[in-house]
Every structure is written in C-alpha cells, then in structure tokens.
C-alpha cells in the first residue's frame, strides 16, 4: 500500500497537560496529526486526537465463540459419531462433562486470536523496522508528528508547535509503511467536544 518517503514536522512535549491543548490547537488550525507517540497510555488522548474507538474487543468476542463452537462440535462428533465410547454407561452426548474443555478453548481462541490481531493491526513482529521520531518517546517525551503535504510551510508549522509549548521541534523524512496508510481513515475532523 501507500509507501514512499514523507515529510513530518515533529514536536516533543514534556508534559501531558501541555500536550492536550496543543493537540486541540493543531487540529483546529487544520494541520494533520500523523500520530502522537507517548511513553505510556495517556487516557483521553485518542479521543482528543479524534481517533475512533478500537473494535479489537469485538474481534475477541468472535474468536471466543469460534472456540466455543469448535470445542462443542468436535467433542460431540467424536463421542456420538466417530467413536462412541461406553464410559460407565453414561450418555454419549455428555454435555456437562464437556463444559471445562469448552470453556478453556473459548478462552484460548479468544486470547490467541486477539493478540495476533493486535500484532497484525499495529504491525508488531520481531525484526520489524520502523521509523522512530524520537528515542525518548518511550521514556519521558510526548512526541507529535505532523504530516506535511506539498503546500505545507514547515517553518510555519514548526513555529506553531513551538508556540503550543513543544520543547524540541524539527523536520524529519520518514518512510511510510502500510500501517501509516491505514491510519488516515481512522482520523475524524476536529469538532468541539465536551470536556476538552
């Protein structure tokens, strides 16, 4: 998908209290926030950036019911059709005795499926190389990357970020992978919301 080199204006903030109004102002001014990299999950930041809610938990639910049906259909097929065993004269279709395994497979499918989906969506895997805008984004800085187009005056964006409270501002060229391409669709336009 969308590859190639793009230009980004990068601003680093050292306090989430400064970051929140900055995110709001940048979006208001019409710049496109590519992403904000934070050392820990900052609650409400996804909301402030206008990123839609994740549906990962729905995927988890679908994996879970897949596990449930797999376990139940497999055990009933084995014990009623493929090889019915007489176990102490009990019914072949021994549903209560299958509850533990059904439950375990439900949990197993859901957990494994969700983690794989998570890694797929976030493009996380061993040996994956990504552009890191700032090494301290995993330490103590909140790093905002603004995507530039041909029309963007990056000096202006830099000045804007500085006035918004960024400690360190620079311009970086970065290769965009497909995970960046997906990202665009998830960003909504700024609108005034309660609480921000």
């Amino acid at each position, binding site marked *: 998908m969308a590859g190639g080199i793009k230009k980004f204006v990068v601003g680093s903030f050292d306090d989430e209290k400064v970051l929140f109004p900055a995110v709001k102002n940048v979006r208001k001014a019409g710049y496109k926030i590519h992403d904000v990299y934070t*050392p820990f999950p*900052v609650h409400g930041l996804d909301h402030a950036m206008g990123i839609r809610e994740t549906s990962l938990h729905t995927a988890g639910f679908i994996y879970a019911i897949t596990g449930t049906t797999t376990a139940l259909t497999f055990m009933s097929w084995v014990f009623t059709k*493929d090889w019915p*065993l007489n176990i102490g004269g009990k019914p072949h279709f021994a549903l209560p005795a299958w509850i*533990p395994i059904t439950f*375990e497979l439900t949990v197993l499918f859901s957990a494994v499926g969700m983690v794989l989906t998570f890694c797929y969506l976030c493009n996380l895997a061993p040996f994956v190389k990504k552009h890191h805008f700032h090494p301290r984004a*995993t330490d103590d800085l909140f790093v905002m990357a603004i995507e530039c187009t041909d029309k963007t005056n990056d000096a202006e964006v830099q000045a804007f970020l500085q006035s918004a409270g960024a400690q360190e501002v620079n311009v970086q060229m970065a290769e965009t992978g497909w995970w960046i391409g997906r990202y665009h669709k998830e960003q909504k336009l700024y609108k005034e919301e309660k609480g921000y």
Partner: protein
Amino acid sequence: MSLLKYESQLREPLVDGDKDYHQVTEDIIRPIEMKPSRLWYIGFYISVALLLFGVYSVYREVTYGIGQWNVNKTIGWGWDITNFVWWVGIGHAGTLISAILLLFRQGWRTGVNRAAEAMTIFAVMCAGQFPIWHMGRVWMAFFVLPYPNTRGPLWVNFNSPLLWDVFAISTYFTVSLLFWYSGLLPDLATVRDRAKTKFRKMFYGVASFGWTGSTKHWQRHESLSLVLAGLSTPLVLSVHTIVSFDFATSIVPGWHTTIFPPYFVAGAIFSGFAMVQTLMIVVRKVLNLQDYITIGHIEAMNKVIVLTGSIVGCAYLTELFIAWYGQNPYEWYAFKENRANLYSPYGWSYWLMMFCNVVSPQLFWSRKLRRNITVTFFMSIIVNIGMWFERFVIIVTSVYRDYLPSSWSTYYSPSIWEIGFYLGTFGLFFTCFFLFAKYFPVIAVAEIKAILKTSGENYKVKMTDIEKADAEKFYIEEVGHAHH
C-alpha cells in the same frame, strides 16, 4: 486539562520519593544495563546446579522407570502430584494480581504485576513437568492430544478430569504468556531506545516487536489488556477448579467432596501471594526498588494472605465437620484416623498444615506485623511449607490406607530421585527468575508512569495545594464533564 484522575489524600502513595517520568525509567531499567552483582551469580549458579540435579533425577526415572520413586501400590501420586498442585497453585497469584486486580482498579498492582506474572509462567512450567514425567513412558506423552491417530482413530476421553487438566494447564500457560509478553512490549521498547551496546540494541529491538508508542497502538493495547484480564479472571478460577476435579470426581474418601473447587482456589491464591512476597522482598532490596514496591504494597498483599488463609481455614473445618456429619464411615475414618489423629503415621503432617496455614497467618491482623518485612518474609516461607503439606495431606493420607487393610501400605517416604526432581523444579524456577530479573524490567515501567501523577508521593503533596486552590473549579469543570 488539569487533573485526569483524582486520588484521595488518605491513600498511601504508591511511588515514594521525588520522581518524574525519566527517573522512573532510570530506576527500573538501570539494573538491566549494569553488570550483575556477585550475589546474582551465586544465586544463578546454585539454581543451575539444582536444575542439573533435577535433570539427572528425571534421567534416572526415565531410564529405570517410575520405580525410582518410592510411590507404591496405594500411593500412586506421592510427592509428584503434590508438587504439581503446589506449583500450579503458586502461579495463581500472578494472574490474580495482573487480571483480577486490574478489573477491580487496584492501583497498587502496578508495582508487582510484572514480576508476579513472570512467577506465574515459571511456576506453571515447573508444574507441567510433574504429570508429564509421571507418565513413565514419557515418549508417549503426545497421546494426551486429540489428533487423528493410527489407533482407530481412538480419541482421548473428553469426560475425564485428567484431560480437562491438559486443556486447562496448557491454556493457562499460553494465555498468561501472551498477557505477560504483550504488557512487556512497551517496556522492552524503552530498553531498546536507551541501549548503548550492539547486543542490547539488537536483542531488545527484536524483542520489542518494533513498538513505537503510537496513540492508536496504545488504545488497542489498553483494549487488549482489559479483555485479556477479563478472560484470565474466570480462567484462573477454572484452572484450580479443574485441578481439584482430579480429586473431587473420584470416590476416594477424603477426596470426594464438593467443597474442593473454592477451597483449592483460595489455597492457590494464598500460597501464590506468599511466593510473591518471598520474591518481592528480595527483588526490591537487591535491585534497589523500595520506592516502587513499598511497605504499602507488602501490607496490601499481607491482607490478601490473611483473608485467603482464613478462607482455607474455614474450608478445613467445614470438611472436617461434614466428614463427621455425613455419617460415611470411610470418610470419617480418613479424617479422624488418617489425618486428625496425631499419633497416626501421617498425623503430624495434618497438624503442621493446620498450624502453618490457619494459625500463623492470623498474626497479620496486626498492622504492625503486616508492615514488618522480616515477619512477612518469614511468614511467606511458613505459608508455602504449609500449603505444600496441604497437598501432601490430601494425596497421601487419603490413599495410604485402602478399603482393604491387607493393602495398607508400608510407610511412604520419597526416594532421593523423587526429592531431586522437586529440587530440580526449584532450579528451573529460579534459573528462569534470575534471567528474567537480569534481562527484563521487573516492574511495568509504562504502568508506573501512568499512575505516577495520581499516586506518586511528590505529586500527592502538590495535589494538596492544587486541591485547596481550585477544588471547586475542578469538580465543576472537570469531573462534571469527564468524557465517557
């Protein structure tokens, strides 16, 4: 945007000292970047030696057969399954801390969850060894898997608790590993971004899966953690429930009781917390993390110990009472003569269990003792000895006297190779734990940062001033409009 979350001033801070985000990173990650101390090497080599002794013991058992252990005609399980249940039980505290306390929004879990989850994984690895090698012909171990085989196909018995165990333990191990590792990714990225040496850059670069800290990724990560916690909560309860089914679904006097599942789960959490205390008291001292694993954390865990210890005590007395009240002569004999009678061959083990698990933790009703590190450390060992004897009592005293007095066995005591196998799992556990403490952040760095500004000591002090200044403004403007 002033305060995102409010925390009462009455609550003890979870992070002591004057910290900022960078200081948190420094404190927790520095031990990884330093050369290990002499103490680490001594501990590590002792663990490896124990592990090797365990490997040799298992080699004896595989080569010469299960007769290398002193298990005999009526005591088929002996130390082996005792150790299995004991290790699985220890694992439970890690999941309780990482999953159940997450759902209950207990902030203090952040200080200990990472190490406790690691403990879970290593404990389950140790536990798994026992049923596998107990099979005797271990090269047939794959028979427990339901796959289309050349024997019919003859499937496994889905109605058997032993097979439920296969599914429960393997699911538990997998889910715990996924939960633990997905939580580790951001912290491994922190280590990667600080790395100076070539080896560290490469190792943590691969291990962190290319984590960047993107907001969207964090959002998914939060969702993932929450759902995994929601899945792990019933999972952890199911695991020890199913382990207890190994006993409870049989008709052996002393095992055939409906109280087993809750009683086993409470006991598991009880012993697991004791093991967390043993490890954490050492780790916080050696890695100098007293600011993150505070006396408050230790006290909170001691409260869980006194609660679960009392539940276990309640269960002991209930099963004793029901054995008498149920009027089944075999059941009552098992309790009265095989256990409660101090002068019977194994009576001592029953009373040792009672003392360690029921009487001794009652000391923790005293706040002073709960906050005393020496007492806690000593008690954590006592509790784990007690919980080991609980499983020993359940297994050995129920079966050493069969229905036929002619098959009452001679006094069962383990052979050196049976003990060696148990010591070997200690070796495995501590080898893994030493490597973990050396190469991975033992505290969840990102999670500590997330609670720092609500629960850190210096921020709580500042908060008092802010509170006075704009208490009203805060409640009206921020809390009133908090986003959903």
